């Protein structure tokens, strides 16, 4: 296993070992099959990088993670306001109309306040019927002093999120960092893979060398 690091992007293998590899490559017939020494085509390298970027972009957590309970707290407060309750209890209009009107009032009011949850609210719209179901649970958690960002809304349930964000002091927060831990692993995994492949292919004879298949065949 002769290694050389003089010109790592050209070859990681010493000249004598490269010669031995070329002799084997040209001299033996693998069941009548031969292999060429072409480089990884550049479009393939481009596709590899594009694939990684696509993988990250497509699975970005903001496009799929569950809503946390904190983003609906203002909805719950406004739903319980007199103005909205009047609309919700208006017997002159249908249930569906009352819902739409009440939700429009809530959303109009929310526009006037700065909130860190604006984007997530757009990602996870909610209707009044579902809000009615989760509201008591959110209020109960708020009274208990819970951090609502650590709770996920899953259908009619408000449950502790299953994130395990371990802090430096050892405590665990069930809250997802915005970049998501799954990505950190993916980045290291991908970098590790690329390094391993680069080392593997640079240990082979350089791709400028063309094997002569007439020797063994």
């Amino acid at each position: 296993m002769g290694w050389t690091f003089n010109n790592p992007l050209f070859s990681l293998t010493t000249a004598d070992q490269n010669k031995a590899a070329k002799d084997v490559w040209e001299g033996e017939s693998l069941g009548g099959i031969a292999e060429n020494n072409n480089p990884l085509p550049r479009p393939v390298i481009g596709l590899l990088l594009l694939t990684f970027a696509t993988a990250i972009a497509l699975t970005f957590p903001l496009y799929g993670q569950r809503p946390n309970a904190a983003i609906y707290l203002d909805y719950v407060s406004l739903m319980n306001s007199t103005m909205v309750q009047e609309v919700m209890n208006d017997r002159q209009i249908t249930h569906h109309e009352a819902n739409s009107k009440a939700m429009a009032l809530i959303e109009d009011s929310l526009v006037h306040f700065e909130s860190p949850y604006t984007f997530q609210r757009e990602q996870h719209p909610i209707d009044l019927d579902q809000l009615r179901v989760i509201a008591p649970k959110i209020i109960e958690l708020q009274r208990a002093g819970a951090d609502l960002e650590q709770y996920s809304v899953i259908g009619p349930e408000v449950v502790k999120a299953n994130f395990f964000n371990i802090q430096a002091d050892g405590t665990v927060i069930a809250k997802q960092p915005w970049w998501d831990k799954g990505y950190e692993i993916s980045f290291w995994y991908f970098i590790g893979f690329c390094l391993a492949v680069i080392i593997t292919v640079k240990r082979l004879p350089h791709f400028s060398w063309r094997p002569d298949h007439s020797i063994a065949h």
Partner: protein
Amino acid sequence: MLKYLFAKEDDIPQGSAAIFFAVSSIAWFIIGTGLGSFNAAKLAFPDMFHGLYALQFGHMRQVHVHAVIFGWIAMAFAASMMYITPALGNTKLWSEKLGVWNCLLYNIGLCLALALLWSGITSGREYSDHIWPIDLYIAFIMVIPWCVNVWMTILNRRTQGIYTTNWFFAGSMLMLVIVFLIGNMPEFLHLTGLNEAYMTWWFAHNVLGLLITPVAAAITYYIVPKITGNPLYSHRVGHLHFWSIVVFYSTPAAHHLMSSPLPEWLKSFASVEGVLILVPAVAYVCNLLLTMQGRWAMFVENIEIKFTITGVLLAIPLNMQGGFQQTRAINWYIHGTGWIVAHAHLALLGFSTFAEAAAVYYGMQVLLRRKLWSASLANFHFWMLLIGFSLYWVSMTISGLIQGAAKIYEVPYVDVVIAEHPYMIVRWLGGTMVFFGNITWLYNMIMTARAGDPVPVGRQPAEVAYTR
């Protein structure tokens, strides 16, 4: 076969094990697709055989799945490995006798396993349906002897290098043993809940991703250069394919459970790795298609290349679907619909089956030293398989999209059943075409063994396919 069970190793002709496995695989393919056609008929016409407990869909589905995976696909793989591995090492199979016993006990075990499934004795886990005694039989009587034969043949090779195909064969068999024994742990350890679900899909994912697709690809790595006479386009791209399968496709099992309460970080990680299946896919497809340079006429003229390259081309939509359908947004729409059934058939009946059929066609001609009895019947088989599969795939994909839309918009279930009825009929027609195509294949191969013209010494069957 029986006369070789107790014969001396040197008295068993080389290639016997491969031929027995190949013939068994075709027979199981007919049984498996026959069961598939029957099941599809039950879905198209639900009142058929109404009231007969043993013929209900819930009993028959697993039998179809396991007859096809363990009977057709795995035995065709075994057949391929038992003649390709020694050929690539310029040696003979480590033990023909072990191979013959392996084939006999494989068939007996499979009959027993399917009989138990049919009678309703199952673990209840999709893809790992067998009860634990059968799991142990499969692992130690059916799979490990096969692995030992392949590994020992590679270790005893008379070449210094190991060709790409044999990396995949040896690697996939190692991963299969690990995946099978660990993946069936829920059965041994009585796991329940999320652990059971995750382990079940870890097994299901890996048995497809680390055995079926890589070995099918390995077969094409052999068939295309061997028959065209072209060198493989790139040894390096072969490395990229092999290692990216190992690295990226052993990790994304959680993408089967995107809506489950698994940790979000695990689902994100699995989803990213799931998209990265496009890395080996791109490497593999470009390597094989570039190897075809200057020999594209064989795609029309040669039956093995026709099957192989069709399989390679089907790997493109397979991996495009596979890469993207498990992302959260798309999975939300198609999870639990016929789309997934279509995708599974694209992998097993599309890509994998076409590659294996080529290997069995080629292997039997080479080992028997006889050319195909009827090229016309082989072409008929090809088109029955391709058209039948295409009808199945397209109809199930459409039906899956309908189910997805209905799921999202909360359309009443009975309306969905009515909307799907035509597609269920097309699915049945497609599956039945595959079934009848396979019967002609078995007939053609039996006639090849009995009455095929001998292939002259030193010639390839492909070279004399059109000579009289």
